[in-house]
């Protein structure tokens, strides 16, 4: 306040100072170095014929690959749905005043988070070795485990139940991040527990829950590639089917990788918009969308365009 007042008359008085923008020589040097590395990598990728870019282009939209993407997306969405639904339930159980419920949820998390998901997939796939006939404890129900547990159901069970353990921790952290005063205010208004949870606590917890859930979604997309061990024809297994015939291993792995990158990029953009939606009322400035962020990037990094100029 005082300092600005002291300087202001001088600036207004003489009126022709020049602003010299700060120079960042190390920034430029680091930028140049990294650009050189990128160029080297690109040149080697383009000039090395073993990358087989022509084959990448040929198989990029192969029917088998596209079907594989479908299976991968289907598995991701279904397993995440199972994971989120069950995860919310487990989180609520873990926070419940009933000690048996919270112990059950805690035990579930310990087991499903403590064993490798690949092992879980294999166990589900081989469930018939444990229970040849599944009756769900209901008399009269007798299902053949070998028919019930197809590779696809084993994949959904294995990935979905595993995901639920991780999601329950995310949801629990979200619920616990909400100030206790919110629950009290809802209680004082006569709102029962379920209503308080669904209308007051969870909508606010979403802000905490969504970013890690987005990560889980992207993680799940790639984890689904594990189902290739169960011979579920997802994106990776489809690529494997093709290269086991034509032996073009690297080009087909590149095809699969490119598709994984494309889908995760789309997910990431969607995640940004979702976060915006749920930050409603919580902060004065909503986080920027991907487009706004790109615009800001180019604005900040072109100081020469309007950096020089005279004040006043």
């Amino acid at each position, binding site marked *: 306040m005082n300092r600005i007042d002291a300087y202001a008359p001088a600036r207004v008085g003489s009126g022709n100072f020049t602003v010299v923008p700060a120079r960042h020589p190390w920034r430029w040097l680091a930028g140049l170095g990294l650009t050189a590395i990128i160029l080297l990598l690109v040149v080697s990728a383009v000039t090395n014929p073993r990358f087989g870019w022509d084959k990448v282009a040929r198989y990029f939209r192969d029917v088998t690959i596209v079907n594989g993407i479908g299976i991968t997306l289907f598995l991701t969405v279904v397993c995440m749905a199972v994971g989120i639904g069950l995860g919310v339930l487990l989180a609520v159980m873990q926070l419940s005043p009933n000690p048996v419920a919270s112990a059950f949820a805690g035990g579930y998390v310990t087991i499903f988070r403590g064993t490798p998901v690949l092992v879980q997939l294999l166990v589900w796939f081989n469930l018939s070795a444990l229970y040849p006939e599944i009756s769900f404890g209901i008399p009269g129900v007798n299902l053949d485990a070998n028919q019930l547990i197809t590779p696809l159901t084993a994949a959904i069970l294995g990935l979905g139940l595993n995901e639920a353990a991780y999601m329950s921790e995310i949801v629990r952290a979200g619920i616990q991040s909400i100030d206790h005063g919110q629950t009290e205010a809802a209680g004082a208004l006569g709102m029962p527990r379920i209503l308080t949870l669904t209308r007051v606590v969870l909508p606010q917890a979403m802000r905490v829950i969504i970013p890690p859930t987005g990560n889980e979604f992207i993680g799940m997309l790639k984890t689904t590639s594990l189902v290739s061990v169960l011979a579920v024809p997802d994106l990776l297994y489809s690529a494997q089917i093709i290269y086991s015939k034509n032996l073009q291993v690297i080009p087909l792995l590149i095809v699969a990788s490119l598709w994984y990158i494309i889908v995760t990029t789309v997910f990431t953009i969607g995640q940004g918009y979702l976060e915006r939606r749920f930050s409603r009322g*919580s902060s004065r400035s909503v986080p920027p969308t991907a487009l706004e962020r790109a615009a800001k990037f180019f604005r900040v990094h072109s100081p020469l365009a309007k950096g020089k100029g005279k004040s006043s």
Partner: protein
Amino acid sequence: MTTETMKPARSAQATMPLVRAEGVRKSFGNNEVLKGIDLTVESGEVVCLIGASGSGKSTFLRCVNHLEKIDGGLLWVGDRVVGYRLKGTKLHEQSHNEICADRTDIGMVFQHFNLFPHMTVLENLMEAPLRVLKQRKEEVRRRAVELLEKVGLQDKAKAYPRHLSGGQQQRVAIARALCMQPKLMLFDEPTSALDPELVGEVLRVMKDLARSGMTMIVVTHEMGFARDVADRVVFMHDGRIIEDGPAERVINNPEHERTRAFLSAVL
């Protein structure tokens, strides 16, 4: 003392007091915060609870709508025992949903407002009447808009709490409690978290509410408000009621040594 002599006279009256505490006790661990509170509040009365922090006044207030469970004594609101269903001579502990149903008659205003930040002001007001009382939307909306007008915030209906000043938020919180059409309003230090220049607007709304005949129990440090608005002032110290009487007398002519010491410190 004062309360003891008042109690038999009050219970002999034909009309039932709205709130009646009989030997209410409450402990947190080994710390006994309420050591036998006897207090009656008549319908339409405004009672201010004063006393140093840690004297148990907020805890007692929170017991009235069962945000805290009492350990001993009985607490009546209207013809119901807080936290219990009275069947003959048996007191059955209430389920959580029954407790919630009983709370709909009691409005509460918190020190830190506790508005729902993800809802607009209007949604904050309408949430509980719609979802708990299951009232019709147009009716609730009309009442909510009316209440916002009453607290002077009709133009903030679509704002989020975050964009309001503390005084405005607290006025919204009062309107939110009133939107449930309660019989009793509890105020837990409603102006303690406010900047000094914002205290007046909240007290004005509370004053209007008191004039309209609402029964109010107010935990406060605002002695001016207590003197001007309260019918009775109750001074609490160390989990007990030390003095209970007309506002004018307790504040200007306290009988008890401790009350005098407290008042000389805050006035």
